[in-house]
């Protein structure tokens, strides 16, 4: 088409095109309403007009644009608002340039861009291909804005595709030229042309390669700049062509990950220091209070003695002196408790743990306390079997823990009260309990009393002066034995402290070094039953989580205000609060903690789901289940990548794939069992299931079985090495996506799996 002779002619051409667009819309068998059309690879794009969707503006909708008008840059993912120019087929011999803002672009399999929708004003800029002057004049031939994020895999593919395309073109040109050559043209000339053609191929490939590489390097440089400026690299780096650049890219990614780890470690270190500082302040104020009180008595009585000794009767003098010595003993106890706390907290000191029959220990502690009990007119009973299964224990420490519990019980017993020390072996544990019939401890304090220097001195609980360290020491000793301790109490009836220690087969050497794992995250565990709380807490603490406990709804809410936990694990049947109120209050929290609810129902009430419970844990919860659920919760709460179930089998290298997925920020859950994979999908917020189909490809029987188990709506990524990329694309439908697996490319595979699982499911295609 030649240049338009006049403005009028140009306007007419535009009108023609507009009409054509409208006609296309009307003739559309779907009434011009559908949003997507599918084009074969290489089909020239058409312009359609859909006033209902576009609201009076033009909309170009393309699919499979790889061979079409979007050409090379179709490998970019565009973000909304990007301004692009598209050269479109209009009528034979002419082309049209459309310019507009991207409304959305769709990523297809393996990160290919399969569709772009963009809107342009009602009267688009029509720049005929034969009208370069117009284009220059308007200065709009700048092609496309640099996309803000790129897709790594596709770049290489496209470079290859285009190289091949140019090669064919060049060879064709060569033959064409050869055909037109005079008959006398010798073989040498032909060969020259062939050489020229292959040089052209090489040159094109080189240019493209350099272009891709330059892009990769620029992205790398920007990432380094960001890193040095202190912000971690959040966008993904495009893949590189040459090995060296690819290595640099890999190292940079690793560096980014490590940087983030260091930053996180530094942050948690700082937080810990602040907490320690706070604790130190509290300790000082409590210790000073607890030191001053006995000192007051000592000073008061000793000065009164010395000033007034002639007026005091011998009995009064003796009473004063007794008081002074009692208060001195109290000071001594405080000091030795402080030293004990310091000792039990220093993890460097190894405790000698030996397989021990605790029966003898228990009896000897009871013998020590018998005279004190009878002096106080308290009945001390001991229930202990002849022998107990061996427990890995440090006898001195266990003796101290029991002594602390017994002396507490005696302290809080009235004359004629009873204190019962009982030991029993059950399953793979030994339970030691100390019960009294004293005033009892309110439910809200069941967790606080085990804390170090709970801010309230113990007098505020029972009206009896103590140092407030005894139970903290007990907890410390028991936890270093891999066990747990809790209190159950009824006001006015008494309290029962129970220590559970692993015995027999359960003896774990690892129990000694519970601080190996340093996981970041605070968990709040709440249940009406103190033993459940203690056992769950112990399992979580062993994993390095920071655990707070609550035994009532009101205490749970207190903890929320004090420590804002990342994850809350709670029962909904609490003594002081209705389930809906509790969940409502949890959901209102900002930031809202991840909510795991313990339940023993066979079917979970829809009402509970409506309150935004994230995960349900059915009782009895196994240790593995608990830890898995908590890790998923922490991952989600920290804004981590997709959670994926890996169904191992067919020689899938689960370890490697898990590692690579974790490297991509995903959380892999590994199972070898289809029904367990299904259970994971129902229990946790899973973003995708990865399964190996093996040589059977699409005929693999595991796929239908798995889809049956996981139910609709969960994305299944089927790995296969039996299908080509194109076949993979063909067989993928809805939530089932086939992904070609190339051996030795696990990293890249993990990358594309991670990308697949964060995408919205594909739009239905007509």
């Amino acid at each position, binding site marked *: 088409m030649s240049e338009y002779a006049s403005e009028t002619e140009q306007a007419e051409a535009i009108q023609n095109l507009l009409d054509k667009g409208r006609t296309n819309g009307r003739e559309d068998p779907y009434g011009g309403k559908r949003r997507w059309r599918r084009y074969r690879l290489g089909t020239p794009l058409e312009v359609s007009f859909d006033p209902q969707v576009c609201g009076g503006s033009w909309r170009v909708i393309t699919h499979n644009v790889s061979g079409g008008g979007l050409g090379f840059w179709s490998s970019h993912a565009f973000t909304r608002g990007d301004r692009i120019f598209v050269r479109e087929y209009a009528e034979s011999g002419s082309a049209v340039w459309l310019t507009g803002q991207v409304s959305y672009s769709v990523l297809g399999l393996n990160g290919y861009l399969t569709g772009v929708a963009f809107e342009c004003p009602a009267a688009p800029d029509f720049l005929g291909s034969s009208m370069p002057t117009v284009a220059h004049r308007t200065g709009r031939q700048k092609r496309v804005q640099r996309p803000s994020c790129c897709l790594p895999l596709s770049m290489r593919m496209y470079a290859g595709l285009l190289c091949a395309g140019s090669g064919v073109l060049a060879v064709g040109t060569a033959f064409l030229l050869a055909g037109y050559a005079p008959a006398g043209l010798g073989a040498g000339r032909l060969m020259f042309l062939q050489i020229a053609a292959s040089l052209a191929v090489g040159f094109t490939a080189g240019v493209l390669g350099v272009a891709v590489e330059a892009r990769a390097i620029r992205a790398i440089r920007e990432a380094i700049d960001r890193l040095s400026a202190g912000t971690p690299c959040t966008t993904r780096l495009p893949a590189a062509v040459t090995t060296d650049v690819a290595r640099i890219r890999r190292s940079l990614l690793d560096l980014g990950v490590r940087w983030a780890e260091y930053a996180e470690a530094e942050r948690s270190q700082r937080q810990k220091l602040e907490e320690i500082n706070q604790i130190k302040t509290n300790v000082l104020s409590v210790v000073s209070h607890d030191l001053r009180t006995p000192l*007051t008595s000592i000073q*008061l009585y000793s000065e*009164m003695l010395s000033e007034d000794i002639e007026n005091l009767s011998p009995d009064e003098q003796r009473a004063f002196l007794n008081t002074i010595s009692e208060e001195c003993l109290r000071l001594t106890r405080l000091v030795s408790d402080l030293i004990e706390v310091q000792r039990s907290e220093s993890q460097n000191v190894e405790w000698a743990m030996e397989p021990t029959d605790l029966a003898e220990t228990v009896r000897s502690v009871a013998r020590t306390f018998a005279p004190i009990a009878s002096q106080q007119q308290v009945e001390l009973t001991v229930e202990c079997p002849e022998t107990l299964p061996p427990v890995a224990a440090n006898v001195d420490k266990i003796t101290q823990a029991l002594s602390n519990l017994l002396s507490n019980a005696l302290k809080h017993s009235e004359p004629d009260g009873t204190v019962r020390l009982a030991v029993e072996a059950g399953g793979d544990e030994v339970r030691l309990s100390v019960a009294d019939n004293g005033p009892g401890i309110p439910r809200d304090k069941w967790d606080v009393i085990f804390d170090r220097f709970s801010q309230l001195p113990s*007098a*505020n609980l*029972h009206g009896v002066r103590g140092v407030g360290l005894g139970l903290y020491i007990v907890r410390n000793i028991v936890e270093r034995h891999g066990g747990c301790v809790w209190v159950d109490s009824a006001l006015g009836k008494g309290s029962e402290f129970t220590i559970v220690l692993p015995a027999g087969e359960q003896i774990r050497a690892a129990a000694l070094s519970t601080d190996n794992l340093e996981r970041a995250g605070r968990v709040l565990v709440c249940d009406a039953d103190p033993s459940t709380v203690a056992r769950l807490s112990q399992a979580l603490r062993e994993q390095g989580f920071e655990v707070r406990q609550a035994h009532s709804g009101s205490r749970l809410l207190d903890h929320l205000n004090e420590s804002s936990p990342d994850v809350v694990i709670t029962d909904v049947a609490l003594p002081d609060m209705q389930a809906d109120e509790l969940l409502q209050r949890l959901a209102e929290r900002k930031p809202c903690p991840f909510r795991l609810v313990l339940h023993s129902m066979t079917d979970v009430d829809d009402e509970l789901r409506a309150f935004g419970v994230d995960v349900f844990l059915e009782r009895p919860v196994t240790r593995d289940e608990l830890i898995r659920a908590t890790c998923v919760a922490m991952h989600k709460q920290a804004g981590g990548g997709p959670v994926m179930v890996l169904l191992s089998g067919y020689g899938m290298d689960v370890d490697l794939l898990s590692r690579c997925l974790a490297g991509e920020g995903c959380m892999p859950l590994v199972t070898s069992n289809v029904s367990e994979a299904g259970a994971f999908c129902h229990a946790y917020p899973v973003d995708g299931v990865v399964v190996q189909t093996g040589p059977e490809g699409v005929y693999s029987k595991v796929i239908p079985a798995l889809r049956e188990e996981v139910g609709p709506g969960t994305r299944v990524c089927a790995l296969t090495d039996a299908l080509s990329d194109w076949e993979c694309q063909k067989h993928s439908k809805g939530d089932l996506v086939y992904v070609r697996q190339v051996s030795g490319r696990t990293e890249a595979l993990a990358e594309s799996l991670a990308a697949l699982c964060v995408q919205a499911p594909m739009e239905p295609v007509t």
Partner: protein
Amino acid sequence: MKKILICDDEPHIVEGLRYLLKGSGRIIEIATNGQEALSLARKDRPDLLIIDLMMPVLGGLETIAMLREQQAFKKMPIIILTAKGCEQDNAAAEQLWGATVVAKPFRPGPLRALVSHLLEGVPLPATSSI
């Protein structure tokens, strides 16, 4: 007769104070927490309150605040015994409630002098430090 109400949850301190402050023309009453102190105060209208801060059931500051709300106790002299050692709290208590703060451990002689001063108007010795 002057009535002194001593409120502390430490039996040794209470008994020591009872011995220290006893004298002709004085009645000494004992409460072990703020709640008891409130009901005793309403019943017996003491002339002086000696109170600890950290106590079970109802703490010292809360007790003082509730007493001062009532007209009858607006002018009653109060001595606060505290083991907390928090200067700001002490200053606030002195300004807000017009109470005298005595830090534990205290010396018995000066405390006795202070009580005599508050109850019977005996002038304080020049070098009285508690």
